[in-house]
């Protein structure tokens, strides 16, 4: 038990359940922490051409201090950003999806070549 909250509290029950097994060693915790920190300074922009030809966008972004940002939008034909999204994500037919990855390098966001 890691929480002193009432048993009927859903959050407490989730915490209790996930905390039942032994805690990690400091080394294991450090490794997991390092894995997470590897994402700092990264942006993922996911886009998919929907069946109705709208483009669904999803953004995940990490700043260097670990701040996580999220956003989403739908762009329809005729919208200001539609053609650009279509072109930049190379969306050719409904169902096509891609992710553009940007890394914060020396203070500037740089599109990575391994973007899908």
């Amino acid at each position, binding site marked *: 038990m890691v929480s002193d909250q009432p048993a009927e509290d859903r959050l407490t029950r989730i915490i209790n359940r996930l905390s039942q097994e032994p805690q990690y060693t400091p080394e294991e915790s450090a490794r997991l922490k390092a894995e997470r920190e590897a994402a700092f300074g990264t942006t993922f922009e996911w886009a998919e051409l929907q069946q109705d030809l709208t483009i669904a966008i999803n953004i995940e972004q990490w700043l260097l201090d670990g701040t996580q940002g999220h*956003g989403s939008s739908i762009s329809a034909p005729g919208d200001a950003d539609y053609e650009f999204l279509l072109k930049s994500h190379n969306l050719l037919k409904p169902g096509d999806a891609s992710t553009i990855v940007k890394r914060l390098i020396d203070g500037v966001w740089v*599109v990575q070549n391994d973007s899908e």
Partner: protein
Amino acid sequence: MSELESKKKIDQAEKPLDNHADKSEQRAFGAAERNVDASKINEIQNANPDRHTGSAGGDQDHSIEIVGFGATVSRKTKLTEKDLAKDLARDLARDLAIEGTATNEPYVLKGRVEENAITPQAVLEKIAALPLSKQAQVVGAGIAAYQQELDHHRFRTFVGTVAGVGDGLVGLAEGVEGLGKAMCEVAKFSREVMENDPRAVDKAAKAGEVVGQVLVGGVRLWQVTDAYLGDIGATGDYAKALKDIVWLGQQIDQRWQAMSPEEKSRLTAKLAVENLAGLAVGFGTTKLAKSMKVTEALEQLGADASQLGSGAREKAGKFISSMLDELMPQEIAVTPEGQRIAMPRNPRELPGNAIEPKSPRDTAVFSMSDDLGEANKLPGKSPTSKADDLVEAKPKIRDSDAEARAAIEKFPPSEKFVAQLERVIESLDPFEKGYLERNGIKIEPVRRIDDVRPGLEHKTAGIYEPSRKVIYIAEEVLHRGNWSRNDDLMFMLRHEFGHAFNATANRFGDWLSDRPEFIRAFRADWEELSLEQLDELRLSLKFKSLAVARDEVFSDLYAHSTGVSSNNPYSLKMKVAFPLCLRILMEEY
């Protein structure tokens, strides 16, 4: 010709006859005739067709008298027109004599010509005085006349009939046709903006000016167009043009509603100072700044101004035009990378053109990131980008609560949004609110995310900042190339709560998504997905580590576990892809 002139001509015509008579014969009657008896006189008098009957009194010498012009003319007092003119001139000169002017100077008749024309303002006021339905008919007819679909005789008759002035007032009809032309120009501008036609760029100012003139004429443009489409229907003859004008009004209102109260106040105050300075009367600009529909407020302002003099009307018209110029849909431009972006009317809206306020009273409208110049380029990227492509400028990190607080205070979210977010927070389950309180996690509304955290994408609707344990939720996000209201508050808040919960719940420091049981559920779901699916969801190892992927799955599935739905297709895919993780969080597994 006057009777006096007729008499003179008759006198002249009789002269030749006189010439043939001797001096004695120059009398009306000869000696024989003069020595006649009474019966002969009566006989002659009875033969006179103008004989005086005696009913009006007097004798035959006064059978005809002309009284007027200060004299009486009869058979006994024979005056010519010339005699009368002399007397009249003398009398008038006496009456009108200016000191030092001789009264016997030739009289000069002076006068002035008054043009009986109807001004554009009068046309608009005449139309504005009509009921809305009739205004709509007149405006529609003006459009048709301008488009030469209605011959001018029929048009004048129609306008005169509807306006209640008969069919003879050509000036009114011409004015209405002018209004029809103006409406067509505004409609054309609307259509070009709608279709991203670059020609709209040159017409924005003109369209704003035209609308300003119409409104200060008292014509409630958008109410009239609404009335037309409502009463006559969307299939009416002029529906297309009027629909475009309605669309323009809606766009203007949307842009207005997207502004914070502070922005609205600043913009209104700025333009009022620039355009209404010196006016003794107020136009209720403070009330305008608080209005929900700026088009209605501007119509009211125009109607008020229509009751004032031309100077005040002109200033009010410029104020309205300036407001519309700020609020009309933005033109679309294409960046060198091929991206179509909305061209800000005010260059300060561009992060790259950040301008510091000249003074604390500077009424410029710009976001915090613009203010501080911390984001120096529009987000954009090329599909052919190389590693050294610069797509955005260096983001700075605000490293103190005070700085973030100052940013929010300087450019606060709207009161409406603050109230809306409070309701969303209130909708959290009591244990969620209790968790936030116990763990010191705050939720802060902000106008735009990069007001507090420059460098984040403009599409970002919410963030969790672990170092200060703050969840920021944005009022505005970049949707479809324009700043729009954040419409995913319920889910977004719970997603960010999921991140905060994941990171803070375990008192030993490890994240809940890293705990063995969640890892097993995640792995089981993950293994069911093909590499293509993992790539599509950017969950494969080439995108991110498993620890990062689990954190994202945990947060998103937590939000789904609360029963709140999302309008984000990506999030819906996540829900389908990780059923076991969802069941853990829903306590069903």
